[in-house]
């Protein structure tokens, strides 16, 4: 019971701290912007620990964060190998292939209006195919290795990336298009000097959406057949072995990897599209 009261007290304390950080004199600084979500996260973790121990929740249902941290620390090598298999080989491989293919298709679609009217509705349909159905089929076609996971990722990221790139290539004003026409620019020159730079914000939007999709795709694909390695494999078999600490450790690795990946793409975006309104601090 004391632990439950402690949990509530921690929540109140964390909330008060965040209110002070967000509305006090330090608001608006980069440090405060980083500190507030960190404090929120830390409060949630502390509450989780107290509530799970205080209410006597069985550890095979929901383990406390301390046990998860212990399992994580004890299995770093294993988790690293899983990370390489799933993220670096499966997710990243599929991401590069999928986004690259989507980009090239977008260029084609932009050039030929006929293709655009035909492919986009079909792409819509393809994107609606649930991964739970496509993953077993792709494992059947590409085998148990990382190739089938990359294939699932390609299927998931292709359409969002295509839609965003096509929208971006269209996002030029009439005046800009007329200007390059007065310069007698060919389609290729217009593409490189006008449309691609204008499309950059949209392309990065697509790339950011695709990072999370790639991660989820690679992990889900492993549920349907894998060698004895990989984050998805680790999660599904650890549930069967009732090793919940390992399950959550693998989930932490996946969430970390996804956030880092997303952050990397955001940093590159800031460098390349510094001129866009959204990067200049507009709300």
């Amino acid at each position: 019971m004391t632990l439950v009261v402690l949990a509530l007290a921690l929540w109140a304390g964390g909330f008060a701290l965040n209110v002070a950080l967000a509305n006090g004199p330090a608001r608006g600084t980069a440090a405060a912007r980083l500190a507030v979500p960190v404090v929120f996260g830390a409060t949630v973790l502390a509450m989780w620990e107290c509530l799970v121990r205080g209410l006597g929740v069985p550890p095979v249902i929901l383990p406390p964060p301390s046990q998860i941290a212990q399992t994580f620390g004890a299995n770093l090598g294993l988790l690293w190998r899983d990370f390489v298999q799933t993220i670096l080989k499966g997710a990243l491989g599929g991401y590069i292939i999928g986004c690259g293919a989507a980009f090239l298709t977008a260029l084609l679609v932009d050039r030929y209006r006929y293709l655009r009217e035909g492919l986009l509705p079909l792409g819509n349909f393809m994107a609606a195919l649930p991964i739970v159905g496509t993953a077993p089929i792709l494992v059947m076609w590409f085998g148990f290795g990382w190739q089938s996971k990359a294939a699932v990722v390609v299927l998931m990221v292709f359409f969002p990336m295509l839609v965003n790139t096509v929208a971006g290539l269209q996002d030029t004003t009439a005046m800009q298009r007329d200007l390059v026409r007065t310069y007698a620019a060919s389609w290729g020159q217009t593409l490189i000097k006008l449309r691609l730079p204008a499309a950059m914000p949209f392309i990065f939007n697509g790339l950011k959406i695709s990072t999370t999709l790639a991660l989820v795709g690679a992990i889900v694909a492993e549920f349907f057949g894998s060698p004895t390695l990989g984050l998805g494999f680790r999660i599904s078999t650890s549930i069967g072995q009732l090793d919940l600490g390992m399950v959550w450790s693998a989930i932490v690795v996946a969430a970390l990897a996804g956030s880092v990946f997303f952050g990397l793409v955001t940093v590159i975006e800031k460098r390349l599209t510094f001129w866009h309104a959204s990067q200049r601090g507009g709300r």
Partner: protein
Amino acid sequence: MADAAVPLTARRWRVPPVLAMILAIMTLWYAAAVPMNVKEVLTQAERAGVAVSPPSAAERRDMGHLVLVAQNPGALGASWSLDRARLPAPHQVLVELYDSTIDEELNGRRGIVRSGSLSNRSLIYHGWVTLNATFVGFLIGAGLGIALAIGIVHSRVMDMSVMPWAIVSQTIPIVALAPMIIVVLYSVGVQGLIPKAVISAYLSFFPVVVGMVKGLRSPDAMQMDLMRTYNAGAPTVLWKLRLPASVPYLFASLKIAIAASLVGAIVGELPVQQGGLGARMLAGSYYGQTAQIWAALFMAAGLAAVLVWAIGWLERRTLRRIGMSA
């Protein structure tokens, strides 16, 4: 760079693009089915006594598909009618779709004609089970998303603390969490529809949060100043300005949310295994009935398209009524 629209009526001989694409894909599909299925076809031919090159399956294992097709042009008759095809032909999928929907209901032992209730072997029943969870999850997720968005817009603390974690929550693979959510809910006695709806809500709340936050912040400075000259408090501003301004953004994100909700319902059915398109897809993959998987897949995609279209219809009507139609 002809950006001017060429009216289709001026060139009647031109095939409509979507139709042309579908025909092209069908042709490619039939063509691809031959090399995809070649190993199974050759194994069956070998068992039936036809001369196949190379003659044993173990030797064929590591050879390329196209090479095998080139070496055995005469033995490929069964490529489009295999029972356990790696790539079922389009007509096989369509036949399976028909068999599991109309035929099963009209003629099946447990179909609606003979037994008065939907057959548990038909995709209509499974689609209905999935739709139930989708709707409930969608309502929960959309409601939660709107509430969270209102909180984020009005409270700096929530804005700075909750948004980053909402983003991180989407990086956690839901397929991993789904069994645990289900077990936790079983332990408090909640079974059946609600666990699946919770998973749907988990996937659908995030697009709604993002869209609504953008929408609630979309009124420009002049409009906000006007409300201030009326001495309007935050609730009034919310009700009379922010919410109406956010309706277009809301509908855009509802379309994404309902598709995500369908995916969540399907994922939730994997552990629960009590009917639904997800259970059906998994069952098809157990027994190697690839045509079943494809049929359920198309049904799910078709459902998603119908749901998104329905939201679009609702959007057009609503926008017209509140005077915001483009």
